[in-house]
């Protein structure tokens, strides 16, 4: 295996693991559901995608097997993980979970009030 690719794979896997760690810290430290969801759905997606990319490159360069399942997994996670974040966040909003006390904007509430008045 070429040395530069060894370092590249190490970079991919380590940065993916680091992003997953950042996700875990975000889930512990952030104040309300929406900010936690922001941390979880963004950085976890990228972290998992980077780890899978590292695994794909490693398997290809080490054994010569191109695992298209990993590529499919990367595409699948990229498509579905933000949508699940969106759905969890929306379910939380619709069931009346309050925003963090220091938040200043809630455009959806304004929009909801406007449509409720016109009806």
């Amino acid at each position: 295996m070429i040395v530069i690719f060894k370092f590249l794979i190490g970079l991919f896997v380590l940065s993916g693991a680091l992003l997953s760690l950042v996700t875990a810290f975000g889930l512990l430290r952030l104040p309300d559901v929406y900010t936690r969801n922001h941390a979880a759905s963004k950085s976890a997606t990228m972290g998992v995608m980077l780890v899978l990319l590292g695994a794909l490159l490693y398997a290809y360069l080490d054994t010569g097997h191109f695992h298209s399942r990993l590529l499919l997994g990367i595409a699948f996670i990229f498509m579905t993980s933000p949508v699940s974040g969106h759905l969890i966040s929306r379910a939380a909003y619709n069931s009346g979970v309050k925003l963090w006390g220091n938040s200043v904007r809630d455009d959806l509430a304004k929009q909801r009030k406007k449509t409720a008045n016109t009806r």
Partner: protein
Amino acid sequence: MKTNDIILQTVTKVTLFVIILFSIYLFFTGHYHPGGGFIGGLMSSGAIVLLLLAYDIKTVTAILPVDYKKMIGAGLLFSAGTGTGALIAGKPFLTHAYTYVSLPLLGKTSLHTAVLFDTGVFLVVIGVTMTIIQTIGESE
């Protein structure tokens, strides 16, 4: 208030085919790699469950007009049929036969009657899972 599920429905339309393809891949790869009828059937029914989550039950039955109870019966018939096929050929029950065929596009391929048995498992797993989920979902 009518909920607007356009993001979920659009993503479902795209990912459904990926899941179905992966389940078919798992089904056919079962002889040489991890996979097989059980996990393939579960993943197929998972795709149908995703469709059920994104749309309502009427739409899904319009898209897939399948009676899942009959699917269980067909699957059991497949599995029992491969067993009795061996009996008809004068071998013990569930003896499987295989042959190597060179197909035009796929090259050297082994055709094995265990695939027919696995088809039975596949159909039964889809049928049982979807029957359970639909009966729970329909009861008020």
